[in-house]
Structure formats: C-alpha cells, structure tokens
C-alpha cells in the first residue's frame, strides 16, 4: 500500500516524498486510535476505564435505564429532528433563490447571512443567544424547547444549504425547459422535475443538519433552560475527573449514529459523480 503511488513506467517515482507516507499513517492512527479505545472500553465489564475486565453490555444497560439519559436522548432527537426539518426546508428554498440566476442586488449579503454561522465563533453566537433569549424569557415567560430548536435551526441552515446548492448547480437546465415546453406550469415543473432531481441533495443536507444539531454542545449549553439537557450537555455535566463508562456507552451510540448518517451522505454524493 505504501508505495502504491509509484508510477509504473518509471523506476524513479515522481510522487514519492520521503517520510510523507509515515506521517500520513501516523495521522490516521492518531485520528482513530483514541476513538477506537473509547468505543472498546464502553464494552468493558469493569468499573475502571483503564483495565479491561471482559466484554459486557453493562454500561449500555445502565445508560438505557437512566431516566436523565432517556430524557436527554429524547430531547436531543426532538430538537435535531425539528431543526433539520425546518433548516432543510428553508435552505432548499434559499438555494432555489440563489442558484442558476444572474447576480442580483443583495445576493452577496444573502450569502454572508447564510454562511454566518460557519464564520462566527460558536461561543460568540452562544453568548449572543443567551442574552437575546434571556430578554424574551423575561418578557414572555416561555421556557420551552422552542429556543433550542430556533438556535439549532439557524446554525444548521448553512450545512443543509451547501449540498443542496451543489446539487442544483450541477443540474441540467434543459430538463426544466423541456417540461415548460410541454406546457407544465412552473409549480408542476418544480414538483415533477426539479424536486425529484434535487432530492439526493436535500436528503444529504437534512442528514448533515441532523448530525450537526445532535452534536452541538456550546450553543445548547448556553441556550438551555436549567433541566433542558441534551445528550452532549448531559455528558459534559457528568464529567468530573474521569469519563464514566456510562458516558463512554452513550458516546458510542452517538458516534454510531453520526458515522452511519455521514456514510450514507458520502455514498449518496459519490453516486452522483
């Protein structure tokens, strides 16, 4: 594998750089070893996180039966589902309005607004939302999940927008013209031609938005009303000096969800090419 880049015609490989392959392998090991360790120890029968005492589902059962974990998990899923749904709808509409068009006044501002959550440090957004929602909470008395859903929706929009926009830009305009030539109304053209072609992009965007919402710590930590923990903020709160095996188990479940969704996204996108 290490020398696979060697050109077959020449004996002198133009692609080789000394030490680069070693560094790359170290890099991949460094990225994966800690995660694999964490996943492995979530199956550890013992209480210690460092000593292996045999395989067991013990910590998964403990987490499953923990009411706080159940609440946090349900809350995480509800927030992520709503945020992904709303963000993807808004992002699809925004993508339709910002692609395949001549530049128009305000387009740059629209881009800047959509990408803002990617550029502004999370802690700044978190603080801004803390202040803003504190004002609303005092004036309306509303304490529900709406704040979390709104905050998550906002930072999910750019993640949903990017794959949808990419898909739209790569789309063949002549199909829609053909539909129009056949006397389809714009709405019918959209529903029967554009939307089906766009669907892989929309699905990809929705999945990324869901993963991003599910993983958020900082903004949730600042926006939540006391007692409104999601899984990540619950895990952060559980942290004392060590990570408990129960938290390892929850981490593994969250990891699995992310990895599965991202894999699906990856292969959805790959087939397009």
């Amino acid at each position, binding site marked *: 594998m290490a020398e696979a880049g060697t050109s077959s015609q020449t004996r002198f490989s133009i692609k080789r*750089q000394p030490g680069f392959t070693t560094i790359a392998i170290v890099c991949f090991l460094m990225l994966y070893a800690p*995660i694999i360790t964490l996943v492995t120890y979530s199956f550890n029968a013992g209480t210690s996180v460092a000593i292996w005492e045999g395989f067991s589902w013990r910590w998964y059962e403990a987490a499953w039966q923990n009411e706080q974990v159940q609440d946090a998990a349900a809350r995480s899923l509800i927030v992520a589902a709503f945020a992904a749904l709303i963000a993807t709808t808004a992002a699809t509409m925004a993508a339709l309005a910002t692609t395949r068009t001549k530049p128009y006044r305000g387009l740059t501002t629209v881009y800047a607004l*959509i990408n803002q959550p990617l550029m502004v440090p999370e802690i700044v957004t978190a603080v801004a*939302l803390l202040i803003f929602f504190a004002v609303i909470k005092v004036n309306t008395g509303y304490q529900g999940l709406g704040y979390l859903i709104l905050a998550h929706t906002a930072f999910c*929009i750019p993640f949903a927008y990017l794959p949808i926009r990419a898909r739209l830009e790569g789309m063949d305009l002549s199909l829609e013209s053909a539909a129009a030539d056949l006397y389809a109304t714009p709405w019918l053209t959209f529903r029967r031609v554009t939307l089906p072609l766009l669907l892989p992009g929309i699905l990809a965007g929705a999945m990324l938005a869901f993963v991003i919402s599910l993983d958020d710590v900082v903004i949730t930590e600042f926006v939540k009303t006391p007692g409104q923990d999601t899984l990540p903020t619950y895990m952060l709160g559980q942290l004392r000096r060590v990570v408990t095996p129960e938290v390892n188990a929850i981490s593994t479940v969250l990891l699995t969800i992310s990895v599965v969704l991202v894999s699906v996204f*990856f292969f959805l996108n790959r087939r397009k090419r």
Partner: protein
Amino acid sequence: MSELAASSRISVDDAPQDAASALQAAERQQAKRRWLLLTPALVILLLAASGPLLIVLTYSFLKPGDYGGVIWQFSTEAWFNVFLQEDIFEETVTFSDAHLSIFWRSVRLSLGTTLMALLIGFPTAYFMATRPASSRDLWLFLITIPFWTNLLIRTFAIMEVIRNEGIINSILIGLGIIDTPIQMMFTDFAIMLGMLYVYLPLMVLPIYASMEKLDFRLVEAGYDLYATRWRVLKRVIFPLVKPGVIAGSILVFIPSLGAYVTPRVLGGGKNLMLGNLIELQFGQGRNWPLGAALSITLLAIVMIALLAYVRNVSRQENTHG
C-alpha cells in the same frame, strides 16, 4: 411553495401589451419570487444568528447588573476592562495581566495547533492525493468521518489517552520506563493536543482539495531539470497548493481561537482560553458587559483573519486568472 404557482398566474393575467414592459414585469415577478423563497431562511438567521450579535454589541456598552444582566446606562467600562485594569486605591491604570495572559495563551495555543496541524496535515493530504484514483475516495471518507463526529466525544477520547491512568501512562508504566505517571492533563500541552486532534481534518481537507488538482507533469518537469525532492516540494508543489494551505490554516486557527469545550475539559478550569473567559463573565463573574466586549473582541480578531484570507485569495485569483 404555492407562491410559485400564484406568481405564474398573476404574470399571465397582468401581461402588458408591449414586450419590453412584459419582460420588466416578468423580472419583477422573478425578483419577488426570489425574496419570498429567501424569507424563511433570512428570518431564522436574522433572529438567531445576526440580530443577537447586535444585542451583544449594545450590551458591551452598558453597566453590569448585580446578579447578572445589565443596567441600562451607557458605559465604556467593559471595553476598558478588556485589556486594562484600574487600581481603585492607587488610582493607577495598568494592563490586566490576567486577561492578557489568557489572550496570549489563546493566540499561542491556536498558532501552535495550526502549525502542528500543517506539519501533519500537509504530508497526509499529499499521501491521499497520490493514491490511485480508485482508493482516494476511501481515504477522503476516512478523514471526513472524524470531522463529523461529536467534538465532545473526541475530546473525551483524547482524555482517555493522556490522563494519568490513561493509555500512554499505563503503557509507559507497564514497560517500566517511568514509575509515576506523567501529568499531561490540565496543561497547555493537553489543550493543544486536544485542539490538534479535533481540528486536524479541517487542515487536511482543503489541502487535499488543491493537491488533487495538482498537475504532476509540472513535478516531473522539475525532476527533469535536476531538482531534488526537497526543491520540487518547496518550489513546485508548495506554491501550487498554497491556497489550500492558507484555507486549512484559517479553518484550524479560527475555531481554535474560540475553543470552549476542549480547554474546559482538558485544561481543567485553570488554563483558561478566551472562550472560557467569556463564559466566566456570564457565570460566576456576573459581568455581562465585559463578557459581551470580550465576545466582540474575539469576533473582531476572527473577522480580521477572514478578511486577510479573502483578500489573499482574490489577489491570487487576479494574478493567476
């Protein structure tokens, strides 16, 4: 979506006689449709992303309330306190050592993280880009997966490796190399290692994107002219992938500077970074205006870095395009 149908019907009904004004009307319709489509996204973003930033700016010019919150009186005290402090007994103004050291730590650790990420990320991106086309997607997939997994979980994972009873210390003690564990947790080193670990994919991805487009005939030409490997790397490859290197560095530097979770978990509350200093003002510190001023300062540094990057990119496009 029903606006689409509605707008088309109106445009048919209202169709004026003369072609030029018909075109104008159609364009107006289109513009209207565009803004209707943009409304939901813009409302959400203004409400929960851009708008609140203005509130932060406003709060930074107010007086702190006794139990958090603010008193609505204009004051520049918070901004004064970002870098300076006043000794009320001696009435002298000095630089605030505590804040300066946190700013300095944030910048230093972020630069260190960026440099380390570049040293590891560049060869990795090169390795990926020189794989056969069929396996490149797999390597890309492998680098993307950690990027999309939970940052908190990855921070926990690195903690398992470096803490006193963690993997490294257990192995070293098991091998008899050391007797007592090396204290790595709750140090600047731990924070930097953690940030390197969580942000490394952000360095590899853009470098790989430029590297993939690299024309290796240029590299070959370099060797034909008797350049050494190091010279080819420095004079041919590096200049060609420089945009990716700059993009990667920005993408690692910015989140490192605003990092909150990693220093909180791995720094153990002693080794604060800017993000933690900001949080402190909204928690125990109960000084919201100062927290707001610090947030705006962080935002300003990030924006300057981004602007420098954008200008750099457009300059390169001008010279090469």
